[in-house]
């Protein structure tokens, strides 16, 4: 007894979490899987997914880092409210995001007439909307973890704020920032609902991997499985790479 009591729930949960993912790889023999992955449909979708999610990621880092830094280091009115509001895209169903994006950026939206919907830009916007909070949250936490005294001492040693950021805050926050980047990227790669609503589903133009899976489900289940496997592999490789970089940086 004792610790063994814990084994059953652990096994049940792990099986529940991993069996569906493993099933995707063992559904068909690997050769067939590879053959199906090489279909132009999935190649196009993969390329589009990588391209859009990378652009989304860059936008998220450039726009999200200042926000994360301010949330971590400064006090201002309604900060708590803002922090909670930032979690909304994480908890809101993606469909809600799609509707919201349409209402703001759609033809008849507040910024109407920009003709964003049904373009790669719309895919990127949907991805930014859904995945930015993951980066901002992780980045905020990692900036918060950087001792303010280190920043203060750097300045008393004659180093200006901007240089202090690059020499102290950034290297110390880097492992956390990388985690945020990985989470955010994985989320962007998997983005489906908001993309479907806002960007539509056109092979080669707005059909990302998740949309290709969904479309393939309507016709050829085995292609859907193959693309799912591809998506899982890409996401897994990504998380693994980031985790290794993070480990190396955590040495001190």
């Amino acid at each position, binding site marked *: 007894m004792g610790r063994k009591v814990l084994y059953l729930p652990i096994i049940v949960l792990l099986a529940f979490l991993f069996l569906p993912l493993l099933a995707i790889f063992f559904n068909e023999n690997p050769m067939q899987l590879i053959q199906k992955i090489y279909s132009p449909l999935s190649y196009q979708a993969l390329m589009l997914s990588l391209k859009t999610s990378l652009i989304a990621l860059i936008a998220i880092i450039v726009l999200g880092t200042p926000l994360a830094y301010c949330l971590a280091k400064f006090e201002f009115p309604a900060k708590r409210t803002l922090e909670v509001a930032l979690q909304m895209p994480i908890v809101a169903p993606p469909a809600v995001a799609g509707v919201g994006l349409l209402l703001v950026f759609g033809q008849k939206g507040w910024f109407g007439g920009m003709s964003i919907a049904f373009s790669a830009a719309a895919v990127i916007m949907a991805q930014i909307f859904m995945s930015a909070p993951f980066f901002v949250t992780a980045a905020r936490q990692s900036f918060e973890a950087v001792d303010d005294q280190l920043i203060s001492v750097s300045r008393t040693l004659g*180093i200006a704020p901007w240089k202090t950021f690059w020499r102290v805050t950034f290297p110390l926050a880097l492992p956390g920032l990388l985690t945020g980047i990985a989470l955010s990227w994985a989320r962007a790669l998997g983005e489906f609902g908001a993309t479907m609503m806002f960007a539509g589903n056109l092979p080669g133009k707005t059909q990302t991997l998740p949309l290709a899976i969904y479309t393939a489900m309507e016709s050829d289940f085995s292609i859907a499985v193959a693309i799912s496997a591809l998506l899982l592999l890409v996401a897994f490789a990504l998380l693994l790479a980031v985790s290794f970089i993070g480990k190396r940086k955590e040495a001190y």
Partner: protein
Amino acid sequence: MLHISIRKQLRDFSVELTEKINKETLVIIGHSGCGKSSTLRMLTGLVEPDDGQIELGGQMLFNTKSGVNLPPEKRNIGFVFQNYALFPHLTVTENILYGIGYLSADEKQERLLEVFTLLGINHLAHARPSMLSGGEQQRVAIARALVTRPKLLLFDEPLSALDVSTRTRVRAELKDLLRTLGIPSIVVTHDYEDARVLGDRIAVMDQGKIIQSGTADEIAKYPASHFVAQFTGTNLLCVEDTSQYAAVSPWHMKLSRQRGETGQDFIWKGKIIDMSWLGGFVRFHLEGDSNLLADIASETVETEQFQVGETVYASVAHQHARMLSHTPQPVKKSKQEGMIHANSKKGKVKWAVFASLAAAVIASIALTSGGNHNSTEAAEEELIAMVAANATDPFKDILEHTGTKAKTTFAGTQVLRTQIEQGAKTDLFLSADISHIEALQKEGLVDEYQPVSHGHEVIVVEKGNPKAIKEVKDLADKPIKLIIGVDTVPIGKYTRQIFKNADEVYGNQFTENTMAHVVSMESDVKQVLQKVALGEADAGVVYRSDVTSKFQEKVEIVEIPASINAESTNYITVPKNAPNPQAGQSLLNFMVSPEGQAIFAKYGYDPLKKEEMK
């Protein structure tokens, strides 16, 4: 030479400080939260005073009148933090060189050697801060501040991060170092012993104000208030029958059980509440009209056998009592207790939030599982139907019309087919596509099937038809955004059939040109309609039956001529494994009867042909 004259409002009080410091060490002593750390931060420029000026070595660092406020990096003030704040990602050498990167390599090396030697940390050069002891960290932090050649050195509680055993040694080392350096220094601490050893001058701070300042000896002998006396460990006592106060060092006190027995001049009565043995003497804490401390030689305590709880008389010889010329201020109530309260309250609030969240989660799980349970139970006596999404509205109407209770799944035909293949039991299956129902027949899950409704496709455009789409040909000719169904769902297949038919009328370029205008391929007709209704797309091809009266408020219908239109047909069957086949069959019969067809017609469907009706 440092001149300070600053004022800053903090939350509960204001810091007001005017000091002149030469090449000496000033120690500011006070309880935590008294404003001493804020004072240091104002000097470094990390916090801006409300008012006043700071001048260091002839340079104005801060002046509200002339608007001067140099940032910390321009002030040339070394700051050693309480926990030393070494950069964890840099080695000791990198830490020390951090602030002098602008110097030449030779000069860097020279200064590095200088501080290494001064502080005796040569052997630590390549270590990481996390590997150093507290004392070593302090020396590195001081070295890092010193290499920048600061004009003023500040120490925030330099010894409080050290354990008791190393504290005394490091304190003595620090004292020697400060003496060697000979630059103005300010140390803040809450420990009188630190202040006594390190300070050339001590300033006692309470609520942001210096209440007494002088050498260690001066403030210990003549504490200006109970607050100061508390720090120095001096007794500040009201002399019996007078309003005069005397400062008495604990080691001048004598204790006895009888009043006047010792023949001393000043006597106080008190109860022993604590005795601590400190080597050669015992420190007594007495509680009475005035609380006092008395240090009594251990041998005396052993002969007299004083006990905690006993009431005794403490006395002091006249020449050892230093009479004060003023009435000292009483000690203000410490704020510490209040703070602890506030914290625990905060903790409770957090727990309350957590608990209510947990409750909400549990409640919602209970609700959803309860809901599922109910619906499965009810389903046992009802008809079960699986209906292609396009027929949602007429089917609901038919159920209402016939008063049939049914548990119906409305979904895409492909999804329904998969569910039946996976063993889902249903009394009625309505398919939007013949291929799926044929497949089920081949698999032996379905016997016979028949058409239940016909439909045709239409072009939908935004209300008011801004792009002036009048006919099918416009789909190819006008620069529009078109949405159609994906080719794997029935509506997508019908749409492509229509385009093919149109090729024959308008020429082979029609399909090519039209497909170039497609901006999205949806797997759900409602999505096509919705996006046209929102104005995101200019036109879409959908089933006529999907354009409900609600949608007609937002979109207009452009008919596709029958000559090129594709007839869509819904098929219906009672599958072999139907749990309630009679109920399924009777509803099927109603649906294909003229009465049932009238309901379909209401929703934009076309009537069945005579020979198809039973």
